[in-house]
């Protein structure tokens, strides 16, 4: 088999492969920058918590309307935004730290979702919600994911300055401007949007992977924020492409294959990355420049 047939052929021959590629491209564009900011704000595990918070909303939407794009998206966004904004507001207006209030919110949301599903008494197809179907992206789903990527990039550009400042020195930002809280809430909303987009393609749990793994990997190659985000996007796009090829040639399930490639990229970055990778013998990078 020549390299062209191996690397490009599947996408020429099959429309579903092209759609899957377009979907993962959009996911990478929207999700990877959000992931980088999550990482810089030490909120890497927040994405995971939010994925759990979204699942019940999507499940409720599914139970009422079946595999309906609109119902599942609306349910997921509603649950995700409620949890993210609720946790964010409580963290900012009370003494409770953000991680604790988020944990409280998402656990309640998860319990509520499981309860509703069990009342309905049917376990159908929740596994499809968990694992997603990158191989079955129809027009509506693709448009949804692409719109989310577009909204994310535009919104990130708008809140860029305060967002970066808040990552680096939230106290300084608070002293010069009152944009800290709105910026934070917009950012949380972006994270929810991207996770909801990701679960249509990859499933709730794997959606976090395409957001966080490239971000964590890019951290080992770049000191400068813009470069880091660009690298994260490139790595996420590569993971999507290589993961689909892996699934096509070996028969591995597509969603996990994509995340696995992202994991391999991450592992290679940990070992070889010039910025604080193992290769540099645990040299510590003092601070990330913005």
């Amino acid at each position, binding site marked *: 088999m020549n390299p062209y047939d191996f690397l490009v052929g*599947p996408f020429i*021959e*099959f*429309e*579903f*492969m092209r*759609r*899957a590629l377009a979907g993962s491209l959009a996911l990478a564009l929207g999700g990877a920058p959000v992931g980088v900011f999550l990482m810089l704000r030490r909120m890497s595990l927040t994405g995971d918590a939010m994925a759990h918070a979204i699942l019940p909303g999507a499940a409720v939407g599914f139970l009422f309307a079946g*595999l309906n794009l609109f119902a599942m998206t609306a349910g997921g966004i509603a649950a995700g935004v409620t949890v993210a904004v609720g946790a964010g507001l409580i963290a900012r207006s009370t003494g409770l730290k953000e991680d604790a209030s988020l944990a409280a919110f998402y656990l309640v949301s998860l319990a509520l979702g499981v309860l509703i599903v*069990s009342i309905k*008494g*049917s*376990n*159908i*197809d929740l*596994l*499809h919600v968990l*694992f997603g*179907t990158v*191989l*079955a*992206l*129809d027009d509506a789903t693709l448009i949804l994911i692409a719109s989310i990527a577009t909204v994310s990039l535009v919104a990130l550009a708008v809140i860029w300055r305060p967002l970066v400042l808040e990552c680096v020195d939230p106290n300084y930002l608070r002293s010069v401007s009152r944009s800290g809280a709105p910026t934070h809430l917009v950012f949380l909303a972006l994270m929810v949007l991207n996770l909801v987009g990701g679960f249509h393609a990859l499933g709730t749990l794997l959606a976090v992977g395409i957001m966080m793994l490239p971000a964590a990997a890019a951290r080992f190659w770049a000191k400068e924020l813009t470069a880091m985000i660009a690298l994260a996007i490139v790595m996420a796009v590569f993971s999507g492409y290589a993961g*689909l090829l892996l*699934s*096509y*040639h*070996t*028969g*591995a*399930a*597509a*969603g*996990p*294959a994509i995340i696995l490639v992202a994991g391999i990229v991450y592992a290679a970055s940990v070992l070889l990355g010039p910025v604080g990778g193992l290769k540099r013998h645990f040299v510590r990078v003092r601070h990330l420049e913005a």
Partner: protein
Amino acid sequence: MFARLLAIVLLALSVSSARAQEKLPVVATFSILGDLVKNVGGDRIVVATLVQPNGDAHVFQPSPADAKTLADAKVIFMNGIGLEGWLDRLIKASGSKGRIVIAAKGIEPHEMKDDDAHGRAQKQAHAHKLDPHAWQSVANVKIYVANIRDALIAADPSGREAYEKNAAEYLRRLSAVENEIKGTVAKIPPAKRRVITSHDAFGYFASAYGIEFIAPQGVSTESEASARDVARIIRQIRAQKIPAVFLENISDPRLMQQIVKETGAKIGGTVYSDSLSGTDGPAATYIDMMEHNIRQFAAALID
């Protein structure tokens, strides 16, 4: 007033519980088996079903209420052939003294035709790579019915006459369905007896009635289809000009629609394999399900 109301309620309760005691409480693991048991047992038994209609017996999550149902049951009917990997633990946990009856006992199980299939449910099963969906052949269900009849007689000897009469009547109806299916398949041109369905639960149907089924997913609904599987199916539909693609009530319809879009194959109606539909659905009973399925296949395969 309140005292009178209470008295009426208590009376009603005691009457209903007395009536319930007369009936033999039994459990069937999933909806299709429950329907068979109901037909043989008639009004002498009360059947509780663990996996509800439209639920998936491969990945069932039992609730405490299910354990209680099991604990009260005198007879527990299960399919066997590795379908209910979760049942052993549940029965032990419930402390049930009910007799366990394997409805598929005496049936020669088929191997799964796809060696690639590797769902988790299958690994958990005692029988490796055996296809549990034996009820898709009516001939097998006649064996199920005989097993159910014998088990009910053993548990409730005074009902022997009723069970034998019910079973004989139901076996007659099954024969009629079997003839209808064979007659319908005979009308389909042999070259067109090929169908794609999203869940390969029709292995027994295929060998009994001669329609070939090709599935994009493995035997367990838990295993996710890979890009290679989907590509193979699309190539196959294009190369062999397979006329129809069928959705199933418990697999992902989005994947099927994508395949249809890419091949131009006709999309058939919903067919039922692992579970019945709800009571107002087209497959409320086993016989309804088989009749519904063959009508759907015929509609898509006969021009």
